[in-house]
């Protein structure tokens, strides 16, 4: 089975801190995604990457950046955390050549205080 692993299940950070959320997948997928999940809003796409060092903005990229230096790892960076970034962050990956949907990680619940 494809595994998508997010390094932290829960994080508490202070306003203004730089925050790194890490995601690793083990099935050589080209595509990786970061979503945030908020009650009543579903999942909203922050950034995605379709290859190493390639990235594209999603629907809500403001306040975030990403890094993909290796194929298996996709990092989400909050440059200066704010309380409105308190959310559940979900990483996903997919194979664009044999597309069966996305495989998700367990999520990181981030609280910014």
């Amino acid at each position, binding site marked *: 089975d494809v595994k*998508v692993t997010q390094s932290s299940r829960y994080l508490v950070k202070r306003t203004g801190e730089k925050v790194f959320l890490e995601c690793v997948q083990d099935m050589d997928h080209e595509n990786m995604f970061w979503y945030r999940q908020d009650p009543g809003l579903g999942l909203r796409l922050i950034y995605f990457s379709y290859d190493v060092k390639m990235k594209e903005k999603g629907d809500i990229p403001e306040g975030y950046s990403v890094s993909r230096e290796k194929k298996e790892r996709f990092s989400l960076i909050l440059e200066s955390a704010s309380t409105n970034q308190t959310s559940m962050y979900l990483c996903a990956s997919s194979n664009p050549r044999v597309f069966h*949907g996305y495989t998700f990680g*367990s999520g990181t619940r981030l609280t910014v205080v």
Partner: protein
Amino acid sequence: AQSVSQHNHHVILSEAASLELGCNYSYGGTVNLFWYVQYPGQHLQLLLKYFSGDPLVKGIKGFEAEFIKSKFSFNLRKPSVQWSDTAEYFCAVPGRRALTFGSGTRLQVQP
């Protein structure tokens, strides 16, 4: 680009009741449709998907969904729910860049 809407935000059912969760999508050419489920404390997992062919799609755990092109719908159904079906359910379609998800339906099944 396609978009998707789920009109049922919170559904409460008793065990053995039948379930139908609504999902409507906007037209966008080739239609691929997904239902994902998120059990409490667990990751999102694929319940079923439709790419082409038989519009009645069967998924895991007794769930099924029917693609009705004329109604732009892909409703999720289960004849008899169990307490273990308590979860949040998301409908999704390919958007311009990535899968676009609905706002989700929280299903609570009471014993």
